[in-house]
């Protein structure tokens, strides 16, 4: 058990300890085996929230609208409804319209799914619990997320339907525009943290709610701008113009049915969870519970089972936080009317981009101004910009620190004290 927890990766574990009856594996086999396991795990994380949130959306929207929502399927609360629908959708006829560009029409849902699927790679669910702890984590996530628009445009363009074309045009304009303020706002906590590594960004906020980035005066507003843009880039109401059913029938989804349609749907809910998870990591302390409990456990048990339990608690905290944000998106969807395309673009280009630029500049200037005036770089919590963990070794080496588990790093005062000494 301890060896498994201490190992940097599954591949490393397989190389040293091997699997039953086979003994230690050579490097390439271990890598392939580990890749399969990782993909299965990430795939599960991709499918699970999607299915769960489709069910939640139905249930919540039902409650909002004074209905019951699903009640029968799977026993008590209709919790198997998404699965039943998925099975139904897979059985449907594989329809490609006569006027459609067959290859692109078939390709589009996979691009969308892969884009939101790959976005999960760098998302840490708990300390070090990411598919890959990347030093360019946020950069990769945002880059991959913006790939989704390609699939949507492809879908609309190849469907051979004018409604789909309208939807794709709107979507192209909207998503590309909203990527900009979203990325700028996501950079605000990055400036505060000083690293693009999502795991470290979250780690820097651990130890209590007073360390969370949202309490930073500029990051506070950046969070709301980010969340608005994230809602828009997930095509959620009130920005669901691409599939506006009262105007464009179903927008780019008009000609899709069955399994391909369900892939678009899965991707939508998966990216909803992804952007919410990103918001939690960047602004809301990641897996930190807000009272310092997890940090205390980690400090008491720096490795082994105690650390593992702390991570499991952190995972649950992370999931709860992200789910709350997803529920906010659901709540907004069932309350507000839809904006018009020019209003959506005006909101983005005339308001959100200047606001996010201002917030970004403010985040950069804030610690400098504070340092100049008061001689410290933060008012609440540990000093922002100085809450750096100890420099790490390059991932891939076998040391314990590079596993993303660095109990010393969370002891902020030590770290900053060490840094301040020349």
């Amino acid at each position, binding site marked *: 058990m301890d060896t498994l927890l201490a190992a940097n990766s599954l591949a490393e574990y397989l190389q040293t300890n091997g699997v039953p009856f086979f003994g230690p594996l050579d490097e390439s086999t271990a890598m392939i085996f580990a890749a399969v396991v990782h993909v299965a795990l990430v795939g599960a994380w991709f499918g699970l929230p999607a299915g769960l949130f489709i069910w939640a959306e139905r249930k919540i*929207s039902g409650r*909002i*609208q*004074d*209905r019951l929502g699903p009640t029968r399927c799977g026993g008590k609360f209709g919790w198997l409804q998404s699965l039943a629908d998925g099975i139904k959708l897979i059985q449907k006829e594989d329809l490609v319209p006569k006027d459609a560009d067959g290859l692109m029409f078939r390709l589009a849902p996979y691009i969308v799914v892969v884009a939101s699927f790959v976005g999960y790679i760098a998302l840490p669910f708990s300390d070090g619990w990411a598919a890959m702890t990347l030093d360019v984590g946020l950069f990769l996530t945002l880059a991959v997320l913006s790939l989704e628009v390609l699939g949507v445009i492809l879908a609309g363009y190849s469907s051979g339907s*004018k*409604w789909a074309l*309208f939807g794709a*045009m*709107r979507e192209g304009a909207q998503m590309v525009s909203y990527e900009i303020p979203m990325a700028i706002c996501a950079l605000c906590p990055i400036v505060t943290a000083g690293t693009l590594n999502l795991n470290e960004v979250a780690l820097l906020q651990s130890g209590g709610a007073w360390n969370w980035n949202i309490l930073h005066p500029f990051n506070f507003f950046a969070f709301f701008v980010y969340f608005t843009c994230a809602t828009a880039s997930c095509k959620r*109401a*009130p920005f*669901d*113009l691409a599939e*506006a*059913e*009262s*105007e*464009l*029938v179903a927008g780019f989804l008009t000609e899709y049915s069955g399994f391909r349609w369900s892939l678009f749907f899965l991707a939508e809910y998966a990216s909803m969870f992804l952007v919410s998870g990103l918001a939690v990591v960047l602004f809301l302390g990641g897996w930190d519970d807000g009272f310092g409990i997890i940090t205390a456990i980690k400090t008491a048990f720096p490795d082994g089972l105690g650390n593992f339990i702390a991570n499991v608690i952190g995972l649950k905290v992370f999931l709860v936080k992200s789910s709350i944000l997803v529920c906010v998106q659901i709540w907004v969807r*069932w*309350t*507000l*009317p*839809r*904006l*018009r*395309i*020019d*209003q959506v673009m005006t909101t983005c280009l005339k308001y959100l981009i200047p606001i996010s630029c201002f917030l970004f500049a403010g985040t950069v200037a804030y610690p400098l101004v504070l340092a100049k005036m008061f001689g410290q770089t933060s008012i609440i919590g540990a000093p922002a910009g100085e809450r750096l963990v100890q420099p790490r070794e390059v991932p891939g080496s076998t040391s314990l620190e590079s596993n993303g588990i660095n109990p010393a790093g969370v002891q902020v005062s030590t770290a900053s004290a060490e840094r301040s000494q020349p």
Partner: protein
Amino acid sequence: MSLTLEDPRVIEFDVRTDEMLVNMGPQHPSTHGVLRLLLRTDGEIIHEITPHIGYLHRCAEKIGENLATPQWVPYTDRMDYLAGMNMNLGMALAVEKLIGLEVPEKAMTIRVLVAELGRIASHLVGMGAYGLDLGTFSPFLYAFREREIILDLFEELCGARLTYSYFTIGGATHDLPDIIPIPPGLAALTKRNKNMKLTWLEAVEMFLNWLEPRIQEYHTLLTRNQIFIKRTAGLGILTKELAISHGCTGPVLRGSGVDFDLRRDGEPIYTRYYTGYDFDVISAPFEDAPREAVLGDNWCRFFVRMMEVVQAIKLVRQAMAKYPKSQGTYRVPYKMSAKLPVDEAYLETECPRGAMGFYIVGNDKAEPYRARAKSSCFCNLSVTAPLCEGFLLADIPAIVGSLDVVMGEIDR
């Protein structure tokens, strides 16, 4: 062929943009049934819009010429299927005008009570469907929740939930029921016992008490919602002159600032129903309108409907107070074989969607020589083209939805 461009104008002339013909409907989700709009668009901007109608034509008028007038009543509530009661009333009144039949006071009270309840139900659907056109689902379901209770009450009244055929020549088919089981929706909403029994009028009173505070909530959810105002106010402006010249009636006309309501300004045979009732005719402009709202825009038309619900509630309450004191019966007998005089009669009544006219020509037979209906929605729909041209594709549902047309009535 070189890859460099010598003259930038070449590419400018090379990339030609074209207008696109888009067929919106008759199966489009937001065209309120089977309206078909042919759009000539430049991107999302509408250059020309042509409504095509006739997909729901059921020969109702021709059938009316082969039936005795009471037999034609069931065809009228299938015209405007959202306000069947009001359609029945208009048709019955036209025939009564032709034969010179006076209905007793009790029947008149019942007619006002039930027709105004029907108006509430119809405007609730109008409100909910308009929310749906603008992309919000919840008001639609709230509206249907409320409407469901009215339908339950109508079911107790006449056995039907949508096509009532309740008003007939000479009054109504039944008197108001006495003791009824509480409608399940009402019991759930007001948290009463499901097995409770009460009189029909008590149930109506209970429902109105439930509905009245909800209207404020709809205002919060839609009318005063900033996004809603952005989508409706200042758009689809129907000027007073245009509205009159196209023959618009009902909330569409009143939203343009014309203070005209047939319940007050109509023919005496109809207005005498409403004498003694205290109600206001709602017409734009409104003092509490948002800054962006313009006289005759989508927002005004929507708001007129919302305020008319309040007025209808007021009327129902007054009719309920009047009913126990009313004299006479609920119906004067009218024989199916009674011959119509050799004469003609045309009467317009104020249906929820506007002035619905019925034209009956008698020929000394039980069946009318000619039976015609003048649709209010047809005139209201005719302003679509001048209102929508030059606006965006997304504004079409907002504008057409604010006209609140029912295709069954237009095509008949």
